[in-house]
């Protein structure tokens, strides 16, 4: 190949010289170049090595279908592999390198694979997974396991940076009446027509300029079009790819905001991921020129005809000196003429024998000829040609470039995303889009129109179709007939090589040859979907944009069928690759999910809390003094609660206001225990079951008035319980007069626990009589005022097993409440306690939380049978004793002590019988803590048969993850104060 830049061609800005590095050497290009055009202008032919055989690969195209020039851009944390050089805009300082080669693309040691080709044929990997015959017949895959890392290294395509991505990405949303994909003649005509009919239009173009294929015309000026579109108020989005169509006319776009800029501002995202909700979609995505399979059709210097036209007229690069063009259709002749006018020596080989074409006779046309074999390895030396009638080498012509046009494939990908199957058109030898029932219209060459006037007419017809479907107009319209060439195309997919071991490529990037397709057929992979997966044809970055049709035609020939009978594989989004960064947008690091804090969050931190994430909530974990460790602090806090008093933020609990005349009946139906006789001014602990009889959640409900309750739920299940109550009231029990409202954010809650809690609270309330044992007995509820006239709700509820109160105020008063209670608690040597101490206190008492109520546990399993009323029916009552749930070997809640009290254990430990330590054992430990009260480690968990069965037996705790084992004994889950005397004090 002898490419060079011409002075009088191209639309690049020659006043602006850009320097860039390719494979560690410095080069220059111009503003308006792509990396590919700049490489060609510097006469660089080899830009990569192929996937399996490490064959030298050049630039095949000028667009998104590129399957050869995949390069790595950038370095360190900005290293981006598999970028198409043909769409990467050049910028000053761009750093790029070839892939899949060591030490470089010009001299690659991996090239030896080219000679080991028969070991790398179709299905190579699958066969290796199954054991390499004959060495491993029936003996597994040890050889694969051993060689895997070498094979993967040898057959990779670039490597991504493993460092954190330094760039930011953004999600954006928009709405419009009409979105037009593609700014070629048809798309522009559609957009203008729609804007003139007052539709709100977005025009999307993946290129940096509007114009589509017209950018390859030497006399095309796009500024006029751009002005016209802008004046009509059309939103033009360039450097933006519509990568997928989804339900309800939703379009996914990827906007490349800074990929073409050398030093982007830090506050600008690299890429933007758009979700567009349109009322109608018009797709004018163009068509893609196909290559032709023949021996050595991958040697650098092979290119599509249209690509060379782009390089000449848009970038001013003449891609060869002696150019052979092989074709089966009319589309190449204008390019042939322009190339020869630009100074190349051009010969056209046309497979057709009978046709007429007008040219200026500046180049030779050889009718009835096809390409047969390219001579050369790193560059083209000459081309063997054949008569199309009788395939065999007939002659050799000297050339440094071979341009191919095996026909055009309309880009039906986006329509295919919607499940609309394209139909084969014999006269144009391509798949054409079928009509869509959804509001999607295909226009231009993506519906098989090959001349510009037809494309423009189809754009206007497309908009009329849209207006009709949207009910805005009722106008007749018609689309021009597919086609538009003077002479019909003659199908030509492969020119068969007579010698064995041909390298006739169908899919350049994945090194799939025509022989691979034949092998797949011989081995029985005759469905196109199987063919694709077995050979990996069409599974590379380009997703078969160039090679798929060739593969299909070969399979059709082998099966003695027509192409439409063989069918085509389904295209799925994305049309071109979308980076993971763009998919995640801003939802990374701390912003990965929302963060919830309680109203006293800052107060907790100011008072020394170390925080921990529980679900979405930040909760105080422990409040270390000086050099205390977590364990020191937890032991001190838990002991203080049992000795004097402690204060704990419990705001994260779910809170639901239940109001209305049928509230009591409602609670009676959703809780397993009875609420019918709960008096005003009392609270009750309750358990909710699911329909299937498994425990859903537990919590308390406080009867504030005849028809008003205040419900608390666990932190983790709050949202689920709320939705559940709404579902029941809106779908099942629509006759109940009850209203439920989430008030979780409206109330700030604190637990005041310990023998001195009443004294502390007494000092905090306006009326000291309200918290006496008489006025506020165990499970009593009162609405009263804290000092300073702060309205509050107090219930005497205990999770820790001590005398304890839950106090709630409106969230705005959270800090005032904390200051007030803390000031008074200090007088009694009280403490602030966090989740760790809370956990220790509740495990000591055998109180269950989400760790125990994990969605598999029944009310009986949890040892709470007393909570299941036998006098009424409730949600889950019919199902809680069904089938396996009534087996008597179910795992029942118990407590665990290590037999040797000096030992520790972890949650997750599997409980086994002594000489039978295997599998899932007979139980599991769900929660553990050091018990300050007992002076050793204790655990809660489940064991088959429960306490009754294992009371005096030594069991074993197996912890294979931590490689630990200890002896255990089973005890009652109520490990401290089993009679609950402290609570009632």
């Amino acid at each position, binding site marked *: 190949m002898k490419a060079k830049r011409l002075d009088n061609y191209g639309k690049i800005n020659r006043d602006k010289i850009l320097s860039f590095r390719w494979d560690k050497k410095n080069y220059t290009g111009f503003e308006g170049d792509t990396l590919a055009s700049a490489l060609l202008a510097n006469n660089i032919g080899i830009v990569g090595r192929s996937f399996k055989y490490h064959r030298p690969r050049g630039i095949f195209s000028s667009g998104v279908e590129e399957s050869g020039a995949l390069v790595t851009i950038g370095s360190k944390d900005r290293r981006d592999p598999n970028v198409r050089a043909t769409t990467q805009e050049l910028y000053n300082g761009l750093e790029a390198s070839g892939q899949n080669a060591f030490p470089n693309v010009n001299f690659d040691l991996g090239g030896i694979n080219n000679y080991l080709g028969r070991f790398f044929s179709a299905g190579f990997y699958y066969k290796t997974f199954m054991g390499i015959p004959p060495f491993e017949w029936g003996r597994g895959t040890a050889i694969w396991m051993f060689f895997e890392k070498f094979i993967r290294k040898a057959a990779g395509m670039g490597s991504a940076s493993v460092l954190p991505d330094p760039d930011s990405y953004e999600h954006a949303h928009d709405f419009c009446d009409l979105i037009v994909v593609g700014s070629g003649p048809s798309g522009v005509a559609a957009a203008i027509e729609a804007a003139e009919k007052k539709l709100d239009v977005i025009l999307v173009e993946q290129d940096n300029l509007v114009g589509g294929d017209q950018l390859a015309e030497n006399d095309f000026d796009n500024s006029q079009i751009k002005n016209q579109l802008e004046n009509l108020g059309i939103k033009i989005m360039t450097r933006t790819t519509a990568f997928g169509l989804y*339900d309800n006319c939703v379009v996914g776009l990827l906007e490349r905001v800074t990929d073409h800029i050398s030093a982007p501002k830090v506050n600008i995202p690299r890429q933007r991921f758009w979700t567009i909700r349109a009322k109608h979609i018009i797709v004018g995505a163009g068509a893609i020129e196909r290559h032709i399979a023949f021996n050595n059709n991958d040697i650098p210097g092979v290119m599509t005809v249209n690509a060379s036209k782009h390089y000449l007229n848009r970038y001013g690069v003449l891609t060869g000196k002696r150019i052979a063009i092989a074709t089966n259709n009319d589309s190449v002749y204008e390019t042939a003429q322009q190339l020869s006018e630009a100074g190349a020596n051009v010969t056209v080989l046309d497979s057709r024998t009978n046709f007429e074409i007008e040219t200026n006779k500046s180049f030779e046309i050889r009718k009835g000829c096809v390409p047969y074999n390219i001579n050369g390895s790193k560059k083209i030396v000459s081309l063997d040609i054949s008569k199309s009638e009788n395939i065999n080498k007939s002659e050799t012509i000297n050339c440094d470039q071979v341009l191919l046009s095996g026909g055009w494939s309309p880009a039906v990908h986006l329509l295919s995303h919607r499940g609309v199957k394209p139909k084969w058109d014999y006269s144009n030898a391509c798949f054409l889009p079928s009509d869509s029932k959804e509001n999607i219209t295909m226009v231009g060459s993506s519906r098989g129109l090959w001349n510009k006037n037809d494309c423009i007419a189809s754009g206007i017809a497309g908009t009329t179709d849209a207006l009709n479907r949207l009910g805005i107009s009722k106008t007749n319209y018609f689309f021009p007939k597919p086609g538009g060439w003077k002479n019909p195309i003659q199908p030509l997919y492969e020119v068969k090589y007579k010698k064995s071991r041909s390298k006739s490529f169908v899919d350049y990037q994945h090194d799939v040859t025509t022989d691979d397709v034949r092998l797949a057929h011989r081995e029985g992979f005759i469905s196109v979907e199987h063919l694709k997966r077995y050979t990996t044809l069409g599974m590379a970055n380009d997703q078969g944009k160039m090679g798929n049709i060739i593969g299909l035609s070969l399979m059709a020939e082998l099966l003695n069928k027509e192409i439409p009978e063989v069918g085509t594989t389904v295209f799925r989004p994305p049309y071109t690759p979308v980076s993971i960064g763009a998919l995640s947008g801003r939802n990374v690091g701390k912003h990965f999910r929302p963060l919830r804090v309680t109203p006293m969050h800052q107060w907790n931190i100011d008072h020394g809390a170390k925080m921990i994430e529980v679900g979405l909530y930040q909760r105080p974990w422990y409040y270390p003094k000086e050099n205390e460790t977590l364990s020191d602090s937890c032991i001190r806090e838990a002991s203080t609660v049992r000795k004097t008093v402690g204060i704990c933020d419990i705001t994260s609990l779910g809170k639901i206001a239940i109001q209305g005349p049928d509230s009591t009946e409602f609670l009676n139906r959703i809780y397993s225990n009875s609420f019918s006789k709960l008096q005003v001014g009392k609270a009750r602990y309750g358990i909710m079951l699911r329909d299937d009889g498994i425990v859903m959640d537990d919590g308390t409900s406080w009867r504030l008035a005849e028809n008003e309750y205040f419900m608390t739920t666990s932190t983790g299940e709050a949202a689920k319980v709320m939705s559940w109550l709404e*579902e029941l009231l809106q779908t099942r029990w629509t006759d109940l007069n009850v209203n439920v409202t989430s008030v979780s954010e409206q109330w700030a809650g604190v637990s005041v626990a310990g023998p001195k809690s009443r004294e502390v609270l007494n000092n905090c309330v306006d009326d000291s009589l309200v918290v006496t044992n008489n006025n506020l007995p165990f499970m009593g509820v009162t609405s009263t005022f804290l000092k300073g006239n702060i309205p509050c709700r107090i219930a005497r509820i205990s999770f820790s097993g001590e005398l304890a109160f839950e106090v709630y105020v409106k969230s705005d008063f959270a800090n005032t409440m904390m200051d007030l209670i803390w000031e008074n608690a200090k007088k009694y040597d009280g403490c602030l306690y966090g989740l760790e101490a809370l956990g220790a206190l509740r495990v000591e008492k055998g109180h269950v939380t989400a760790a125990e109520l994990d969605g598999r546990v029944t009310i009986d399993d949890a040892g709470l049978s007393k909570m299941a009323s036998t006098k009424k029916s409730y949600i889950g009552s019919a199902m809680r004793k069904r089938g396996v749930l009534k087996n008597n070997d179910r795992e029942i809640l118990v407590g665990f002590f290590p037999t040797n009290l000096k030992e520790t254990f972890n949650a997750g430990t599997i409980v086994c019988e002594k000489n039978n330590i295997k599998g899932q054992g007979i139980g599991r430990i769900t929660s553990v803590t050091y018990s300050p009260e007992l002076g050793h480690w204790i655990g809660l968990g489940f064991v088959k048969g429960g306490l009754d069965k294992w009371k005096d037996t030594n069991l074993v705790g197996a912890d294979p993850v931590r490689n630990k084992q200890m002896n255990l004994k089973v005890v009652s889950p109520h490990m401290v104060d089993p009679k609950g005397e402290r609570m009632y004090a």
Partner: protein
Amino acid sequence: MIRINCPYCGERDHSEFSYGGDATINYPSLDASEKEWTRAIFFRKNIKGFQFETWHHSNGCRMWLVVERSTVTHEIKSVKPCHPDLQKVVENNK
């Protein structure tokens, strides 16, 4: 992306909603037998085509909705509130 036309909020992305389940089940009374409940909870049809299903506008107005949706094309034919009284309100406001 499915777009659901909430009778209260208007047309919104499905990410604002949570899927409920089969909207045609008549849940037995609470004192019904285990057998009846088993049938209601565990035996489901796998419909190809239009089906009635419940969706909760959980990130919106919190209304439970009956949506008539095609399991093949995602086409939505109708959206109504589950609660009959709310249905009436919507009808009257049309």
